[in-house]
């Protein structure tokens, strides 16, 4: 905004501020429906889980520092590696992507004032928090998941795992799945219906394409997981026999159901990273993305093809030859959309005039790691090689290059990139670069030698290993690398935390960014946009005339929607103005509903069936009250 604000505009801004203001203090945070506050809640919660998952990882690495060490016993080790996987995948990467980044940024990027369903959004967060607390109650009670993150039966059945560990796993995932599904639906509707008039689908930022693809993938991938988990709990809690071979069940049924979810999940993990990369690269390369339509198409295709490749996780279980060949071919096909995106990023960097500042460095690190992880991934489509190397450290190396290198790096890059927007301050560039190099070197030293020990025959998931097999030196290097990696990430947090208080003021647009969020003050006001922005390309911030038009419209009071708690909706494809809808505001109902569900799951894991039924009824009652109070037409 300009320094001297004309009084007419100031009156409008005041009015908008009053309309969108939420209760202050703790009550404000507990009842909020504002997508930015919810995004921040998601961010801080997922950072805490990231810390927990990181501590678990360091414990695992410390135990494997040398042969036959006694830092963790077999039981503790199995709980740690299982919980590490579950935490990082279900409670860090996915909720940080869609819950924190998606929530905070998608409405800003499409020029909306909030998510499509603000109260459901709050509900998503509280459910997510409660499910995480539920899981970690199990962890701290000594009943952490202990059958691995893919929890194969019959190892995870009552017979071989009689404690409540697997119940905590299954119920926590069912519980958190409610949150993920709700967030996905919210993102889909927001992207389809809440785009600023003029932002037709071909003018939508690639970031939103990625989040649209992820959301659809989640909506379709979670049901098979939920089915698998419900069948498992029916077996464990109520004596059914879906997976019990002795009673006519099938152990492989679990694997199929799990991986029908689990492989799309891999792309669900990586696609937000692609979206963040395609936001940061054009800004710092100072040019538009090369091959925009191809990249948009590739993002959608990755999510779609990801559903047809699940059995490549099962090449060693003895499937028929025809089955393995089909799934290997399908797995190779998915290389194509990834290749398109990879070379689109690289070509954009080559043809642009890139400024290698901290956020872009993390994206370059991401590209390098994604190539390594992608190439080792292609090797697994060679069936005999897969059968040789699956379930060894080679796989561990592969998926850490993909999940840590290629999914977490853009998330950290994104944290740096949008930090000035969210906080209004700049971070320390030198510390930022140092944190990148520490993490990059740490990750390489941690994860690259894992390829080698895998090839040298070290299976994954063993709590200890004998000396004399050529594995010792590599394991030592991996452990040292993991400490360096941890230090690098800690430096990111320190840098951002200190800058939050002492950073220089950032201004609206410190990077000369391309998308709409850079047109508004930092941090953004509660109503986001004083005037619903005009959009005529996917790079609205580089369309100077449109932004000047916004200024004139604000002065004239056009499209400012200052009479109520409102946001405009538009048609799905062309984004023609549809109608102005009233948005719900702060409410206790989402938090209460989530608490009832938490009580329900607590009763299930402790086998109090009647009480569980009672809380189920109460949850329904709260939802009833909640909807009694919804504004008309929302």
């Amino acid at each position, binding site marked *: 905004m300009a320094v001297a604000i004309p009084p007419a505009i100031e009156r409008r801004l005041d009015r908008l501020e009053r309309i969108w203001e939420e209760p202050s203090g703790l009550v404000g945070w507990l009842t909020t429906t504002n997508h930015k506050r919810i995004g921040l809640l998601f961010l801080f919660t997922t950072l805490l889980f990231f810390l927990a998952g990181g501590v678990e990882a360091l414990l695992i690495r410390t135990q494997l520092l040398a042969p036959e060490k006694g830092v963790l016993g077999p039981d503790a080790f199995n709980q740690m590696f299982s919980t590490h996987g579950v935490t990082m995948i279900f409670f860090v990467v996915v909720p940080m992507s869609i819950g924190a980044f998606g929530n905070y940024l998608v409405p800003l990027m499409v020029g909306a004032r909030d998510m499509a369903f603000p109260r459901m959004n709050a509900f998503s967060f509280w459910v997510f928090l409660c499910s995480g607390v539920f899981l970690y109650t199990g962890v701290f009670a000594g009943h952490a998941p202990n059958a691995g993150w893919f929890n194969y039966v019959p*190892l995870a059945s009552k017979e071989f795992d009689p404690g409540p560990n697997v119940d905590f796993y299954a119920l926590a995932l069912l519980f958190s799945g409610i949150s993920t599904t709700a967030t996905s639906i919210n993102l889909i509707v927001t992207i389809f219906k809440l785009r600023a008039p003029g932002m037709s689908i071909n003018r939508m930022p690639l970031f939103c394409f990625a989040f649209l693809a992820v959301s659809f993938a989640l909506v379709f991938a979670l049901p098979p997981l939920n089915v698998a988990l419900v069948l498992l709990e029916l077996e464990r809690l109520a004596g059914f026999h879906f997976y019990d071979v002795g009673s006519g069940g099938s152990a492989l049924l679990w694997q199929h159901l799990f991986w029908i979810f689990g492989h799309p999940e891999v792309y669900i993990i990586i696609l937000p990273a692609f979206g963040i990369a395609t936001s940061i690269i054009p800004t710092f390369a100072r040019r538009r993305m090369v091959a925009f339509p191809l990249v948009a198409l590739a993002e959608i295709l990755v999510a779609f093809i990801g559903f047809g490749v699940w059995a490549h996780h099962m090449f060693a279980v*003895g499937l028929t030859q025809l089955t393995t060949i089909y799934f290997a071919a399908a797995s190779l096909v998915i290389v194509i959309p990834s290749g398109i995106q990879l070379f689109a990023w690289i070509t954009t960097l080559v043809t642009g005039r890139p400024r290698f500042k901290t956020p872009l460095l993390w994206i370059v690190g991401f590209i390098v790691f994604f190539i390594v992880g992608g190439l*080792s991934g292609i090797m697994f489509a060679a069936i005999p090689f897969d*059968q040789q190397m699956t379930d060894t450290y080679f796989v561990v190396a592969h998926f850490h290059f993909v999940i840590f290198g290629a999914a977490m790096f853009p998330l950290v890059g994104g944290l740096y990139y949008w930090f000035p927007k969210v906080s209004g301050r700049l971070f320390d560039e030198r510390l930022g670069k140092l944190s990148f190099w520490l993490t990059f070197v740490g990750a390489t030293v941690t994860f690259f030698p894992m390829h080698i020990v895998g090839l040298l025959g070290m299976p994954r998931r063993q709590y200890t290993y004998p000396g004399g097999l050529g594995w010792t030196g590599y394991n030592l290097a991996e452990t040292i690398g993991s400490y360096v990696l941890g230090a690098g990430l800690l430096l990111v947090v320190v840098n951002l935390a200190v800058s939050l208080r002492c950073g220089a003021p950032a201004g609206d647009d410190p990077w000369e960014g391309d998308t709409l969020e850079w047109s508004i003050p930092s941090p953004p006001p509660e109503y986001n946009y004083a005037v619903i922005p005009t959009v005529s390309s996917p790079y609205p911030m580089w369309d100077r005339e449109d932004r000047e038009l916004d200024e004139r419209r604000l002065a004239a009071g056009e499209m400012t929607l200052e009479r109520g708690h409102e946001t405009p909706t538009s048609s799905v494809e062309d984004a023609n103005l549809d109608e102005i809808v009233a948005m719900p505001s702060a409410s206790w109902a989402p938090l209460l509903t989530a608490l009832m569900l938490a009580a329900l799951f607590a009763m299930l894991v402790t086998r109090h069936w009647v009480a569980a039924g009672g809380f189920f009824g109460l949850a329904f009652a709260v939802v009833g009250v909640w909807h009694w109070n919804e504004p008309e037409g929302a």
Partner: protein
Amino acid sequence: MTARRLPGRLRPAARRVLGAGALLLAVLLLAGCGDGAQSSFDTNSEPSRLIERLFWWMVLGAAVVFGGAVALLAISWFRRSRSGIPLFGEREPVATTAVVTFGIVIPILTLAGLFTAANVLVMRKTNAPAPSSTSMTIEVVGRQWFWEFRYPGTDAVTANELHIPTQTRINLVVQTADVIHSFWVPQLNRKIDAIPGKSNRILLYADAPGTYRGQCSEFCGLQHAHMSLRVYAEPKAQFDGWLRNEASPAPELASAEAARGRDVFMSEACASCHTIRGTEARGEVGPDLTHVGGRQTLAALTIPNTAADMAKWITNPQAVKPGNKMPGLRLTPDETKAIVAYLQRLE
């Protein structure tokens, strides 16, 4: 280890090309050779050799892609203040064509080649063998946490140490008695899972005499880390002698102490979990001990099979391998010593 050195022609050209640049990979290969290794580089049969060769070709391809992509990133850094593509300038169709060429056309061609080589040619050799092509069958049963080996047609049952004749195509039938395990001896072939209710098959073949280490490679619970095995490949005559002995009932006892050990074994809980053929011990929980004295290791390669280690194992099995199914029995030192004397005698 007596692993045979590979003939020169089998060293893929890929390695030579990479040799100069990839010092790391050379270190990797050297580290793989050594006594008792379980390395996928120390191959001793056609299937694992083909897989290794496939791997090096894939590494070659991967190195080209990685090197090219990193070179492009380097170019973007060196030209960070100039826009456009070298030689072509700022022509958008050129940039798009580059994306289509590198992202679509070249991958399709390369991947088609990889698919044919791996999933048609190599896979023929690593697939389950045709029943008519093998000359003997061995059954493997994965159990928490040891391997049981049976030789159909004989009474031989042993644990963790699998004896096979060299240069013989063996049809290995892999099953499980409890959870999922995975049989893997990387020097001889790829792995195969042991799935409840299924009998999976794989070819086992060793070119040369030697011992080849293997390990369970599907997470199977507390002692997944201590579920190893060793394959002893022996010339046919030596193997036949071993099998004849292994199939016979437990040998006669020579000493009074061994006889006393036998009595303790039968009267204590031992006999309810272990089988010793030719005696009343018919338990089916733990490994068959009929010829345990002839084995080199105990508890799935966790400890060597010496009198001292066996005594330690019998006295406090939970200290050696926490969580395993063998309870610590309250035996006097004398009883333990007698049992060890008895079991060591069972060769």
